[in-house]
């Protein structure tokens, strides 16, 4: 179904009652024009943009479509999980709000009726001392699905991890998911490379399943996952503390 006729109505980024709402037909290029690419709290959006497909696709792809395809390469989906995003679904029978985690149940499978449209994505505004980061590793910089993708949302208070959410392209299903046991382990601890190392060596391997395929081995993917977890957390911390 072609929804491009609704482009004017469904392409926006708005602040509404402490939340941020993004219209389903907003493209990466549209997002690049908004505060989401400038405010240090939301720079995860900028990170995705830099590695998203190629310049030729950025004016065409939509954030609703990225969620709708529901695959591990849906970078916005991975990132939005760390923002506790919800999705507004609209049909002739009305509208409902469903959490992104509940909406995406398996690869290419959404818990929605066929007549429901993805209308907008909503997530709470981040308070101060929060920031985000996203990283993707592959052989090239663009037109890549990524051997691994990682997104984090971090809050630092007095050098302690006051809140943390970490998502990967896959955790234990074939869709993006959160590493919640690792998050719980990190919360309240001093922010340091040693703490992160302890988390990814002791807790993380027990909750993530990394499989081998023709592109990379599971062992390599697990190793990369640990590396990217550390790098994204350090990046987010740097954005909170130093503003870059």
């Amino acid at each position, binding site marked *: 179904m*072609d929804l*491009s006729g609704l482009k004017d109505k469904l392409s926006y980024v708005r602040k509404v009652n402490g939340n941020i709402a993004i219209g389903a037909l907003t493209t990466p*290029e549209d997002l690049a024009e908004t505060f989401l690419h400038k405010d240090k709290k939301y720079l995860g959006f900028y990170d995705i943009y830099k590695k998203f*497909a*190629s*310049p*030729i*696709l950025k*004016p*065409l792809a939509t954030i609703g479509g990225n969620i709708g395809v529901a695959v591990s390469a849906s970078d916005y989906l991975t990132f939005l999980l760390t923002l506790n995003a919800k999705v507004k679904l609209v049909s002739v029978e009305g509208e409902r709000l469903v959490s992104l985690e509940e909406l995406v149940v398996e690869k290419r499978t959404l818990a929605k009726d066929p007549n429901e449209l993805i209308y907008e994505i909503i997530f709470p505004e981040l308070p101060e001392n929060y920031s985000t980061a996203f990283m993707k590793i592959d052989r090239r*910089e*663009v*037109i890549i699905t990524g051997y691994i993708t990682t997104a984090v949302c971090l809050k630092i208070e007095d050098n302690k991890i006051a809140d943390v959410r970490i998502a990967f392209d896959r955790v234990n299903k074939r869709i993006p998911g959160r590493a919640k046991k690792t998050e719980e382990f990190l919360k309240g601890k001093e922010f340091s490379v040693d703490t992160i190392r302890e988390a990814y060596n002791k807790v993380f391997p027990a909750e993530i399943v990394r499989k081998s395929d023709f592109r990379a081995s599971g062992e390599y993917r697990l190793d990369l996952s640990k590396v990217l977890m550390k790098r994204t957390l350090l990046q987010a911390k740097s954005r909170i503390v130093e503003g870059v």
Partner: protein
Amino acid sequence: MSTEEYPEIEITLNVNGKDYTVKVKPYERLLDVLRYKLGLTSVKEGCGRGECGTCAVIMDGKLVASCLVLAVQARGKKILTLEGLTPPGKLHAIQKALLDTYAMQCGFCFPGVIMAMKSLLDRNPDPTEDEIREALSGNLCRCGSYLRFIKAAKLAAEYIRKGQVYFEFKG
């Protein structure tokens, strides 16, 4: 209903400054309409899934893959293909620069590469090498002329900054 039974829709496209009224199926791609209905054969199909950049055109000032745009989505938009880049008998600075740097090999990717360079130079008259690499990152060249594309983009930018946008085509 099979796809053949879908009714055709009459649409008007503004291509290279001229309005064309064509009948299209709702599922027809802009690529097919430009190439097969309007005869603009610079628009080529490579991968058909937005990865190679061979079908790139500029739509309302933005570089897009015409294989991923439905013709009906292009209604009311201004589309520029390679055919509309210069007045008849002229070479654009980008084309001149590509010739000057001997970047031409098989040429299949050229229309897309030229449109990508045009899109870049329209918004950035003096791009850095990184910016050129990023702007051309959606265009694949199986002959491997990438490094010459970078030289050509810099040269074209220089020509345009000097006001030399069009050159005589000497054949």
